């Protein structure tokens, strides 16, 4: 049985990525895992008492988003698992791919006009190539239609 990992964050591309994951999992009867990464990189500076609070709230948001994705998959007849990672997104994804036996990773394509893209100016393609090379996992980037 193949294992598909679908990285989610919420939003339009996330919905498209989830739909694609459900479609693939259904077609091959694959194991589907939704992955959400809790990261504080984009919240600006956090005060001493705030790091823990922000981490707790982001984890809470992630838990709800994962449950929504899981329920959506269940409605489509696919049993999905969930996993929450912590830390910088790139590292957390790579860590997860190395610890699980994964065949395919699905991620939504970031739009370039986003404020602080992790992959500015076409940085995504090299990241995908290098991650594929390091982990041996095939990666599919789901583009907005």
């Amino acid at each position, binding site marked *: 049985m193949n294992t598909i990992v679908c*990285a*989610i*964050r*919420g*939003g*339009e*591309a*996330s*919905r498209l*990525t989830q739909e694609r994951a459900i479609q693939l999992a259904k077609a091959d009867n694959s194991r589907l895992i939704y992955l959400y990464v809790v*990261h504080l*990189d*984009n*919240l*600006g*500076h*956090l*005060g*001493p*008492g*705030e790091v*823990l*609070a*922000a981490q*707790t*709230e*982001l984890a*809470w*948001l992630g838990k*709800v*988003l994962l449950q*929504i994705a899981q329920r959506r998959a269940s409605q489509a007849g696919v049993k999905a698992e969930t996993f929450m990672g912590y830390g910088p*997104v790139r590292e957390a994804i790579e860590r997860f791919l190395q610890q699980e036996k994964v065949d395919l990773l699905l*991620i*939504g*394509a*970031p*739009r370039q*006009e*986003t*404020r*602080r*893209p*992790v*992959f500015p100016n076409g940085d995504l393609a090299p990241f995908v190539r290098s991650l594929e090379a390091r982990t041996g996992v095939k990666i599919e980037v789901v583009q*907005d239609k």
Partner: protein
Amino acid sequence: MDIILLLQEHPPEDTFIQFEIAFVVLLTIITGVAMVVDRIGNRVPYTVALVIVGLAFTFLPERLELDITKELILSLLVPPLVFEGALHISWERLKRNLLPILLMAVIGVIVGTWIVGQILITFLDIPPAAAFAFGALISATDPVAVIAFFRTLGVSKRLATLVEGESLFNDGTAIVIFNLALVAGAAAATGTTSDPAIRLTLGDVGAFLAVSAGGLAVGFIVSMVANYAIFRPVDNRLIETTVTMVIVFGSFLIAEQIQVTESLHMSGILAVVAAGIYFGNVTPQHMRPGTRLAVNSFWEVFSFAATSIIFLLIGLGIDIREFISINNLRSVAIAVAAVLFSRALVVYSATWLSGRLGTAVPLPFRHVIFWGGLRGAISLALALGLSPTQFGEEQIGVVNQLRLMTFGVVLFTLLVQGMTTGPLLRRLGLAEKPVQDIERQRRLGRLYATRAGQQEIDRLHDTGVLSGTVWTALADAYRDEVNQRGQEVLELLHEFPGLEPEIIVQARRAALRAERTALIDALRRDLVSEQIQHELLEEIDARLSALDKIEKSLDYQGDYLPD
């Protein structure tokens, strides 16, 4: 009620009562206007509504006369406004847009002053010093009304940074150039120089730089000292909130007391700008989230009251009947045309240059920056601060003419530009997201209201008021309606998946607030001690503060990966 005269003519206790009455009257009018604007769904900017109400007072048999002085506006009302504006400016975002902002706010103000001055000299035969003083005072933009639109329509944060940043810095620049023009005008009027034209000397440039940089340095130092001396060691929200007042008015006063030349002092407004930016970006790191919320709420209220009073005073200060004269209308029309022309030239060329130098500003943003360049409090305060003989004994009429033109331009920008900026934003496609946002609010509002109705029906049944088939029928009808409303929310989420995280965060915030209220209740019921309650409230405040940051970071326009 002439507040200033009252201060002079009546014993202190009477004066205080009269002042207090005037203050209460103003706040009552403000509250009424705010309620009406809120009722009509914020279709008219609140500040514009205040001006209109103020103008309407012209036609009352007994005018509400308030002596608006430059000092009242510039020293008491403007610093809180500027501070609150600077407080929310992200240094990171400001830094990324500093080039276009400084091009517009420094070079742009100088060029704009010159263009407006030249037009007035040519068409209205106004003395050069007066023409350039007007050019400078009218260069200060006031984004309050426009920013209100931005918030309602949720336009790009970058556009808001450009508009707010330009306004913060051009206030200071305009005041400095205005004072330089007055100094030159005074020299011409007293015969110190025989040349009536204004010539920019190296000394003026040096003075300009010293006044601006000096002001910024004062604000930075005051805020930094407060940060190290108070905010780091002290952990008390009352003390820390009080100290922010010292920072605002203290930095303003200190800068205004430091003479750069015989007739120029450092810029108090720029001092407040620097203090606000430093405070907003550095100090919160050393504050508890609860204290930060308290400080932000305090300045939000202070700024709301100050803004409201200023705009109401603008309306009250303009006697609309004075415009009913061909000569006056002509002066105002020429001033408006000059201001629009110079603004267009400055905005489009500064942003073009910025693009050439590496920081491009999209064309739709340029249109909004041009048309959204409203004028307000600073221009008015500077015009009101001119003495009748400012430009010499023979030029007494000129000061009145300048005031009238200032009021005219402020009025035009507020009423015409202010009322059309919202449609412009929609037309340019800069307000697309809020359509979903507004729909989300509408559908959630309906669901919330229907659920409340359902609960009331159940309560009536529980208390025995409703029973039998009537209750069953009503309960069924409400259940269907709640289901339908819920379905509408789900459909919206399906159509706009990007709203999902926002709704989750919104619900979480409501839940945390309910937890907060429950803790306050728990203390009343002696379930927890004050110390434990304080500790738990701090925890919830930290989470609420974190949620604010998470919400700000949500830019769910299609990507999985964080921006």
